[in-house]
């Protein structure tokens, strides 16, 4: 069952078309990476899901209910972490969560329990000072806590890691990973390594529509080019290697770069046999031989070209 589904969504700002016939759905229980370059429409899409922006056409439904612009009932299923969450600087984190609890309709006791639990989850239980003095990373973590307060079925995070240093990023990703299973997470980013680290599904948004979509393993599988990388001890070795007749015959599709060469083939086993033969006859001992997995980066570059 899909928890979020978007059908034929369109949105323009003036003449500028941001979202162009966008259709995709997010299966329940996944961590869904929503990839795209800056300005590709990720934030716009999310804001439409939250009813903060009005689509020109198309429909969005969350947990089977249709999203309407303005005060949408579907928001009770959603927790939202904006890209740069803004808080009331004069409040302490617990006070802020208590305000959020009252607004979302949780009773006092439940709010207190939940906010203590969440503050320790995001590591802010010791931070008993006003939010105004928080670092970016701390604000982002508090942002996750406020988003999770009403136990949402869907957690939407807009570029939660973009503005953070590597340690801050790791902390955020770990927190997201730790709530997997309790809630479905959609998170937008342009940092591919983040997606590879925690997502099981990914979709790439380009020029306002989805150009690539599926589980991470499927994506890699479908675009698999068998590639082998060899790093030689010296360029002379490399030249000698390509001097070999059978190597030249089997390695038609290759790319040289200083001491390394990457070879692509649809029959990698045959190529491997031939290059190892060549190594032993030519007495070449390369420093590294590696079968390359397709990276998300290469897939991404391919589709957004």
């Amino acid at each position, binding site marked *: 069952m899909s928890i979020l589904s978007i059908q034929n969504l369109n949105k323009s700002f003036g003449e500028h078309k941001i979202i162009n016939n966008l259709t995709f759905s997010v299966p329940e229980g996944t961590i869904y990476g929503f990839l795209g370059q800056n300005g590709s429409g990720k934030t716009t899409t999310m804001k439409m899901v939250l009813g903060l922006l009005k689509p020109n056409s198309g429909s969005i439904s969350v947990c089977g209910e249709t999203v309407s612009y303005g005060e949408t009932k579907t928001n009770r299923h959603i927790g939202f972490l*904006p890209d740069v969450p803004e808080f009331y600087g004069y409040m302490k984190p617990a006070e802020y969560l208590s305000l959020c609890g*009252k*607004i979302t*309709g949780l009773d006092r006791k439940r709010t207190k329990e939940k906010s203590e639990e969440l503050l320790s989850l995001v590591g802010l239980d010791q931070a008993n000072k006003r939010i105004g003095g928080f670092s970016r990373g701390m604000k982002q973590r508090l942002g996750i806590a406020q988003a999770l307060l009403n136990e949402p079925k869907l957690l939407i995070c807009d570029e939660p890691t973009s503005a953070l240093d590597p340690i801050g990023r790791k902390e955020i990703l770990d927190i997201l990973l730790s709530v997997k299973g309790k809630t479905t997470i959609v998170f937008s980013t342009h940092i591919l390594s983040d997606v590879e680290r925690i997502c099981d599904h990914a979709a790439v948004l380009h020029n306002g529509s989805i150009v690539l979509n599926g589980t991470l393993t499927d994506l890699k599988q479908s675009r698999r080019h068998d590639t082998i990388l060899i790093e030689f001890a010296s360029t002379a070795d490399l030249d000698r290697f390509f001097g070999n007749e059978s190597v030249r015959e089997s390695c038609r599709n290759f790319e040289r770069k200083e001491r390394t060469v990457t070879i692509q083939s649809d029959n990698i086993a045959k190529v491997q046999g031939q290059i190892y033969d060549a190594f032993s006859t030519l007495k070449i001992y390369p420093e590294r031989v590696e079968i390359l997995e397709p990276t998300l980066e290469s897939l991404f570059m391919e589709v957004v070209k």
Partner: protein
Amino acid sequence: MNAFIAFANKELTESVRTYKLLIITAVFLLFGMLNPVMAKIMPELLSSFMPDGMTIALQDPSALDSWAQFYKNMSTQIIVFIIVYSGVMATELSKGTLVNMLTKGLSRKTVILSKFSVTSIIWTLSYALCFGVTYGYTLYLLPGELPNLYLAAFSMWLFGILLNAVMFFGSVLFANIYGALLTTGGFTILLMLINIIPKVKKISPFKLVSENMLLLTGELDFTDLRISIAISCLLIIGFMIGAVGLFNKREI
């Protein structure tokens, strides 16, 4: 209703912790004391600065002079109030602090109405404080009976509420402090300009702040003001409906 109270409570906390309430209370209290004292000692002060042998004919100060000070200074106090509170709606929109609240299910109408209620209550209480202190000091320093004392005070108070509503309208329209202040200032200047037309002058909300002294001297009374009061009330409601409507349309 719970969300309304919670958010109004947040507004009050904000007022206290960002020192807005402190400033307003101090200023209104200060002027409340200054009005009668200035009225009382001004003639003595003036004559003490005169060179020896020179006398100026000054009337003995009366309660009327104290209230003249009150209405003169209150227009400054309204300006201070509007400047101090110009950010309550506008900054939330320009900074984006409302996003978390709105996605938690807080309705936009509740945001505006609770903010407007809190600023109106603070205006009312600080105005009452200033009025009360001036009243008490005047009673002691410059005793005297005056007609329409409460009506004059009420009309100035109502004008403050009207400007508050205009400020909310401007805040939502422009989503920044400068827009809010320009709208409020522009509205006041507009009132002053159309006051040149005699027919408008008779019924303009501006009458609420321009003719307080005539009420106190008994030259005017409630019948002269009732249309202005009614129009002001309608404008307050109109601007608030406008602000809510605009806010509902605004994409955040």
